[in-house]
């Protein structure tokens, strides 16, 4: 896939959207469009701990969507391009990002339904140079997730799902990043859900996931191997591929009309393609709660722990524990406030490393990722909003470069 293809897809989506306008009659909005214009100050746009670069970004983004709601079929298309211009950024001062979302549902009968979701993201992250030296390699990328579920209702209270998913990451550069990080993930899953009451359901899950790195075994520019106590430079891309089996059960419960929760847990077994460990097993679990303490306030919290794909090239697995929370409050009918936070701990085990390094030379490692966000929105009227945003991201790592990044922004959005 390339930019030309992307352009065709965008044109197709826009074409469908425009044609749906003419199809929409009697105020039935099949087509929606909105525009956002804003600016933000970023104090570390190159994610560096030692050579921070700050800048102001001005941007404009469109949000075009088209919904087709037929008797047994629902199709939703959404395209969101975003163009931004950065002040004082060497070489390439502008970015163009694209996001496409497609949702397709079809009901074959009262018992059989099909659902397909696709989300394609193209992010342009150009090479950055400062005073003649390379700060960041070019790493524009495509990221696509395609999911499908076939659901069969065994009865009004029992549903079985067979699902599949394909995740694809493709960096565009040929300077090592693509070889190291491009991957495909294929997931197959089956579940059986029993609705014991409208407020409670229990489900059993079974899933199989395969992750395959495209560049494994390729010869590349010399790369460092984080976590290795012995300074070692490698020229062959190690293989981080793995197959993960997950099985367990879940509960969804509406405890009261304003409190909804879900719980999920079970066992995971992960087998590695070319690692110093053959297989690892571990329990996994997650819990989430959404609460409406008052009509103007909503609160969500969640926690999860599971094996995860490794973000560090020397390790084949990470053990991830995450907590998250968010609160939204409508101060008045026109003013809304939001606050959110997340904390993730990634633990890397020296034994779960690629087989091109010696376990004895490797160290265990930890990474923590903290994100904070706050937003205040003011609604002028039914079509116009103003938003003020603050976000902070903080990566602390034993294994790779750390950074802290803050961003302050103001944004105006309007429905077209």
């Amino acid at each position, binding site marked *: 896939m390339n930019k030309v293809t992307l352009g065709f897809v965008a044109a197709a989506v826009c074409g469908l959207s425009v044609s749906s306008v003419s199809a929409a009659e009697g105020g039935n909005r099949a087509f929606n469009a909105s525009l956002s214009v804003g600016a933000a100050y970023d104090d570390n746009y190159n994610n560096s701990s030692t050579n921070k670069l700050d800048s102001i970004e001005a941007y404009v983004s469109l949000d075009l969507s088209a919904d087709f709601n037929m008797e047994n079929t629902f199709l939703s298309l959404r395209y969101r391009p975003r163009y931004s211009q950065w002040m004082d950024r060497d070489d390439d001062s502008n970015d163009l990002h694209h996001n496409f979302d497609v949702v397709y549902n079809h009901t074959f009968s009262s018992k059989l339904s099909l659902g397909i*979701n696709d989300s394609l993201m193209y992010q342009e992250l150009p090479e950055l140079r400062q005073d003649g030296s390379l700060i960041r390699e070019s790493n524009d990328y495509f990221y696509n997730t395609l999911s499908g579920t076939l659901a069969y209702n065994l009865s009004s209270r029992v549903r079985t799902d067979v699902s599949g998913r394909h995740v694809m990451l493709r960096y565009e550069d040929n300077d090592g990043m693509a070889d190291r990080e491009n991957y495909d993930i294929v997931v197959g899953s089956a579940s059986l859900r029993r609705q014991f009451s*409208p407020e409670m359901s229990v489900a059993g899950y*079974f899933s199989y996931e395969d992750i395959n790195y495209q560049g494994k075994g390729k010869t590349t520019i010399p790369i460092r191997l984080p976590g290795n106590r012995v300074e070692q430079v490698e020229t062959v891309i190690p293989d981080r591929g793995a197959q993960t*089996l*997950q099985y367990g059960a879940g509960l969804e419960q509406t405890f009261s009309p304003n409190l909804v929760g879900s719980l999920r847990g079970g066992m995971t077994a992960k087998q590695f393609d070319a690692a110093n460990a053959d297989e690892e097993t571990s329990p996994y679990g997650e819990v989430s709660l959404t609460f409406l303490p008052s009509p103007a306030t909503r609160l969500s919290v969640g926690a999860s722990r599971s094996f995860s794909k490794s973000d560090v090239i020397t390790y084949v697995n990470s053990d991830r524990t995450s907590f998250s929370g968010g609160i939204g409050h409508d101060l008045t009918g026109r003013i809304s406030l939001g606050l959110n936070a997340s904390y993730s701990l990634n633990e890397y085990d020296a034994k779960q490393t690629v087989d091109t390094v010696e376990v004895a030379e490797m160290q265990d490692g930890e990474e923590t990722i903290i994100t904070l966000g706050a937003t205040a929105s003011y*609604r002028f009227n039914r079509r116009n909003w103003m938003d003020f945003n603050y976000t902070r991201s903080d990566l602390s790592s034993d294994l790779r470069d750390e950074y802290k990044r803050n961003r302050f922004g103001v944004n105006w959005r309007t429905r077209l």
Partner: protein
Amino acid sequence: MTKRILMGFMAFSFVALAIGPAAAQEEEPAPIFTQGQLAQLLVKQLGLAPFLPPLPTDQECIAILLANGITPTAEGWSAGAEVNRGMLARCVVQALKQEDTVQDPSNPQSWIDALAELGISFDTVGQAVSQAQPKDQPLTREVYRTTSDPLLKRDISTSDTIVTLFFAQQVIAQMPAPTPQPRPDVTPN
């Protein structure tokens, strides 16, 4: 791994055998339009479906609507309860962020009146829901979701994605992607 797969199938089959046949003999309920069905419709209409798995459950739809402050009653959601005009009007007004135009929020008729004042009338559920506009900035951004579900995980998300969350609405991702590794001192050639 083969043993694990077999164990997984066995566990899944056990659950299937335990709860499947008993439920298959149950009678179909009377066809009323429930709040759970309304939640399904609203999630599609408001553009929230991409944030959920394909064919989400009623509870999954209710949770995301609750997180966005949309409820058919002041108390919240009851998936099995029947929907009336007041509930419908309330959801549409909230989706349009026009709550401040409602004279008496405790009176369902006020929500219907507020909708009428906005020039929106409806006779059917579909007609009402179709008036709700997609949330161009879903409040799900306020929820950094963490999940262990391989059907939902999003592993990509550069730090740039994190800071553009509020603009690009890429909300489900929160983990940084691998940052480009610094070039080593040695270079080719």
